[in-house]
């Protein structure tokens, strides 16, 4: 088993915390790993990345060879583009959809999101929304770990003790907020993954996920949602665009889509 991840983001977004959580989860699993990161000048708002290599055998190179990564995990959507040449043919992209605009020539947001949706092997998650739902706006990086977990050789429970440890100094309320973010984002990621595995068009999955309230994703309904979207995509698009704000991802939404 080997699993190579490129972490992508902007200096200051907490990439190194994600790397730390993944490292420790790897160690707890008894996996071998190497994780290379960027310190120094680039951390001042520049493009930053980390290469994370997990394996049950000795990892040799600290850097992932081009065309071999299993995942690009992004905290910022434009940054994904910088590392696509690392991604293997079957690789996936899991990324935050929230642009971090600190350069004058940042492309229009629709273009950035559209380009990623068209790639196909992508899951775009609104980490800001998930973090805010738990009143923990700084937890977007934890949200990305949770959303990526269904794709990773880890389970949510692998991260829980590490989160308790990392945030121990900040008190119980910070810990429980982060655990909630982890759990909510995991369910959202799992829902996304299930629908994409059914070949529901990416833009449709993205549209639906964005309409469902954080914390209300029901794993046992995912298949039914997928079938409904495949069955009548145009109608679902119409229904989704008529929904104002967000609503629970329960059976009543399913009924609305399939009515």
């Amino acid at each position: 088993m080997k699993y190579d991840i490129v972490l992508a983001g902007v200096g200051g977004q907490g990439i190194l915390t994600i790397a730390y959580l993944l490292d420790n989860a790897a160690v707890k699993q008894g996996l071998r790993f190497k994780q290379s990161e960027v310190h120094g000048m680039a951390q001042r708002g520049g493009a930053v990345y980390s290469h994370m290599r997990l394996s049950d055998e000795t990892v040799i190179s600290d850097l992932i060879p081009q065309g071999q990564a299993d995942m690009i995990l992004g905290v910022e959507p434009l940054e994904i583009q910088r590392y696509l040449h690392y991604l293997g043919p079957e690789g996936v992209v899991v990324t935050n959809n929230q642009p971090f605009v600190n350069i004058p020539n940042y492309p229009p947001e629709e273009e950035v999101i559209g380009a990623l949706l068209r790639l196909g092997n992508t899951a775009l998650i609104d980490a800001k929304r998930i973090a805010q739902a738990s009143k923990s706006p700084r937890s977007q990086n934890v949200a990305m770990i949770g959303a990526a977990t269904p794709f990773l050789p880890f389970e949510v429970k692998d991260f829980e003790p590490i989160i308790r440890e990392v945030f121990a100094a900040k008190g119980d309320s910070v810990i429980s907020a982060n655990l909630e973010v982890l759990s909510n984002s995991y369910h959202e990621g799992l829902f996304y993954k299930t629908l994409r595995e059914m070949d529901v068009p990416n833009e449709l999955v993205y549209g639906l996920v964005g309409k469902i309230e954080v914390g209300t994703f029901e794993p046992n309904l995912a298949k039914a949602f997928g079938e409904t979207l495949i069955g009548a995509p145009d109608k679902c698009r119409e229904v989704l665009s008529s929904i104002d704000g967000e609503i629970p991802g329960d059976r009543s939404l399913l009924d609305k889509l399939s009515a």
Partner: protein
Amino acid sequence: MNDQMLLLGDEAVALAALHAGISGAYAYPGTPSTELFEFIDSRKEEYSVHARWSANEKVAYEEALGVSYAGKRSIVSMKHVGLNVAADPFMNSGVTGVNGGMVVFVADDPGMHSSQNEQDSRYLASFCLIPCLEPANQQEAYDMTHQAFEMSEELGLPVMLRFVTRLAHSRSGVSVEERKPQRPLNKVPRGGQFTLLPSNARVQYEKLTEKQPDLLALSESSQYNELVAGTARSATGVITSGIAYNYFMEAVGGRPRMPYLRISQYPIPISKVRQLVESVSEVLIIEEGYPFVEQALRGIVGVHGRKIRGKLDGFLPRTGELDPAIVANALGSQPEVSWKPTIDPLPNRPPALCPGCPHTDTFKALNDALSGYDQPTVTSDIGCYTLGFYPPLEAIETCVDMGASISMASGASNAGLFPVVCALGDSTFAHSGMTGLLTAVQDDDNMVVIIMDNGTVAMTGTQQTMATGGRLEEIVKGLGVHPDHIRVINPLSKHHEENVKVIKEEVEHRGLSVVISRRPCIQIRKQA
């Protein structure tokens, strides 16, 4: 695996140094070396180690040498260009030799992630005639540090540990050894060893050259200089070293069929190199940094009947960092790329000053103060504020080495340029700016020195600085700057007009002025 510790390359060396029983650790922050000292610093009580940030690398080196002089073990750590600052004691410590084991940790930055050049410290170890160890992974970093201390004491020489960015900032599991006790005080007996008067230095230099065969013998027998016969007939052999070995092994799937020599301990093991070269008709040299081994092999007349490939014939890129793809290419296997960027052109995202950074307000005031002059000159230095080069500020025009802002401004002013302003941070000032300012005072050079006092070494992660606040004014005064021309401003947009006025007044003053622009780094604010 669970009993292993998760460590950055830098931290693996730090922990090994603690376990090897160091009594002192000294450093000046510099990417990618900073984390070594930070790791030791955070455990200094537990290990009863004297650890502190020094004003600069030269000071750090001399402090470490003093610990060694007293018979105890020490480590000094710096980035590659830091060794230039410490070059004086470094070169002479080869001649004096050491007493307690002393390890010189130098982290090179190929690719210039955070540096002005990509100089290769192996040349400096060779220049100083001391051994150099070059680990390829975190475990070797730990193990070789232990070895370096032993070797340092056996040979009576400082030993260099050469790192590169990718190892410094890569994390992996490391198995550790038992902690050793510190050495007792055991001062060098009085005599000529450390008093490099010519008469003593000649004796010492003779001793140093006499040790060279021992250094070579250690390299030849080192387990880390591994000559491996090929498993298949191959016209090509490979010589590789340091982190480049990892990329080589990755490219051949961990099972090289051609013969190869891996060098991790210098001086270059000559007979092992000869053995490899004799067995093949072509040698490919893969090393991170300058073509150090390759140049030695080529010499001036080359190796008769052998083709040598590497960075000097353009087979591998001469500049920048190696990576698995570059090395795989050199070995004839083209990595397959499945995905390409779908946004074209993809905008770059260079580093920038943080929102709310005091430097931004200082530069804005400076730009406005100089807007009425035809050809203002603004020299600067190394720190976050160097980012003031980029648009929209475009406030500075030089960054050469720590402290050069002041001395270059003196020279530029002496040459006849006006107005001349230099801008540097408080930590850079403490590192190498004070001597330049003391010199500028002599002729009352017509220039303005802006010291941006943010109270920290910001770029490397907010380490402690020593010439800040009221102390900074005292230093500037003590160096001889006239008190009327030491001005303090607060770089906030609400004080902009006032700050522009102060800078303008001092530009118009015919002589030396210092403007201290003081506001704490926004990163320290966040931490607090």
